[in-house]
């Protein structure tokens, strides 16, 4: 009996961990896309999630039907992503990596300030898609919206994978990420590719932001902590590796959920970071990172 209560609890932690992990994974995936194409670590990635969620809330409040609000919100976030590339990243081409990081932090502060004026400083939520009644799976109570988040994540992953491997444009992105010089030589317009990765990343962020808001709520400053966790997830998986980013995000979410449930909810972030540190000490380039090679 006690053993089964234990399994139920573990199952519960697994579901909540996967839900949070899916959000981290999508932020981490956005990071990875941009990093691969341009070697920019975009700490404004979390703001796309916030923009998607907050725009949906306010467009819906203005009287638009929810689906229309969602689509418009995704477009708003994509405009922000494109503007970030056009006005902040592209003019700074060739700057130090650390200078680029500061620029994206500046962009994140700017977007947060903008959201605080255009929207407000309160917490907001969206109605869950299929009600708030938990479904019982193996004794664990799961919110239907959690399943929506996970399903949405799966759709996005498969869609992105198909886009990257089956379309000419997607393969151009892969080529430019692998070797920008060679890609330029075969006629790929690399600056356009880089702009496209900002578009895709902001789309990813906005979609997951909209999906998860019924569970986690949102506010103008929700992006910062997500960027932090997404960055940690990227490093956990190994930078530049898309499957690693997804794996890192899910593991980070699970670590937090199990840490909070089994050890201490106050220190759940600490537990996640201790695990990250431990992994980095054993594998200095992340779980799926390659061997440490350095050209001299």
């Amino acid at each position, binding site marked *: 009996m006690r053993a089964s209560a234990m399994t139920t609890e573990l199952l519960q932690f697994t579901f909540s961990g996967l839900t949070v992990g899916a959000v981290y994974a999508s932020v981490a995936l956005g990071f990875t896309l941009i990093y691969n194409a341009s070697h920019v670590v975009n700490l404004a990635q979390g703001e796309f999630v916030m923009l998607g969620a907050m725009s949906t809330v306010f467009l819906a409040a203005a009287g638009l039907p929810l689906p229309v609000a969602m689509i418009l919100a995704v477009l708003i976030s994509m405009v922000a992503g494109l503007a970030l590339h056009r006005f902040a990243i592209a003019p*700074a081409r060739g*700057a130090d990596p*650390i*200078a680029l990081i500061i620029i994206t932090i*500046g962009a994140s502060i700017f977007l947060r300030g903008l959201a605080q004026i255009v929207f407000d400083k309160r917490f907001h939520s969206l109605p869950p898609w299929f009600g708030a009644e938990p479904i019982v799976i193996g004794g664990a109570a799961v919110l239907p919206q959690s399943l929506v988040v996970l399903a949405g994540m799966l759709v996005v992953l498969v869609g992105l994978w198909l886009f990257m491997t089956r379309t000419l444009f997607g393969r151009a992105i892969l080529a430019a990420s692998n070797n920008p010089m060679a890609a330029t030589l075969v006629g790929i317009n690399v600056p356009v590719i880089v702009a496209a990765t900002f578009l895709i990343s902001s789309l990813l962020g906005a979609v997951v932001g909209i999906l998860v808001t019924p569970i986690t709520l949102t506010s103008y400053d929700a992006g910062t902590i997500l960027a932090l966790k997404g960055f940690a997830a990227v490093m956990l998986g190994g930078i530049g590796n898309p499957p690693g980013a997804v794996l890192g995000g899910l593991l980070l979410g699970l670590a937090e959920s199990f840490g909070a449930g089994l050890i201490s909810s106050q220190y759940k972030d600490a537990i996640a970071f201790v695990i990250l540190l431990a992994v980095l*000490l054993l594998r200095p380039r992340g779980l799926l990172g390659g061997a440490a090679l350095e050209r001299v």
Partner: protein
Amino acid sequence: MLNRMLRSRYLPAFLMLAAMLALPYVLPSTYYLRVASMVFVFALAAMGLNLLLGLAGQVSLGHAGFMGVGAYAVAIGPTHLGVPAIPSALAGVALSCLLAYLMGRPILKLKGYYLAVATLGCGLLISMVLTNEAQWTGGPDGMGVPRLVLFDAPVRGVQTWYYVCGVALVIGMVLAINLTFSPTGRALRAIRDSEVAARVVGIDVARQKLFVFVLSAAYAAVAGSLLAFVNGHITPDSTSGFLRSIELITMVVLGGTGAVLGPVAGAAILVILPQALTVFHDYEHMILGLVMMACMIALRQGLVPALTARFRERTA
């Protein structure tokens, strides 16, 4: 005499000393002296970080954690343990160095973004302990800092702390300059330029990195203690939070890595700008973000190196 001073490697420290002595005669009220004290405090912390980033090329996104240790030492020591403030501050610096040593040994092997996220994690852990151990630290609301008492006389007054912070900054600067021109400084520069080459010429890379990491933690802890004294009240976020760490690294990069006056310029911008922008009320964050982006796009090497380069061009 003047000529020798102008060519001296200590010129930035002279300039800083002169500015510190002159400012009280120019600034119209004690409010500005308080802001100047904050500039000095953050410049000191950023200067330590500049040794790590500008000199040795190692990044830390968790440096505010060490500031937090220094700040809470002078608050917890007198309040809970009955230890006077000065020994508490020294204990804070020692503890900060010890933490930096223990953390630095394993994580300084990491490179680039991996080092960034590992230091970020360490800073977060310190900040989380300060937030959660409420019986000692007062939790997220923070705690008051007892007034410093020296020889039975309480140290008070904005002006006093202004000079204390200023002198601390000048001393920190002289030490930083000495280090830059010492054999250790050369070794650290070699590590920044190429770790492999440094190892080949016989530099103990791990040891030198650990040394400069511990030293920069000491700078941050001293700055943290001063911050606590000047403010009189501290919270985990205002001393050790993630945004503070980001602010410190931004000060270094904005001012210009490698230049001794760089951290001072960066700290001046990031401390004074938010104060000045409060007149714009809700728009302050937007403007702050815009200024940060514009500075980094227009002046890639940072403010001080860009300005000195322009100055040299004109005089040459």
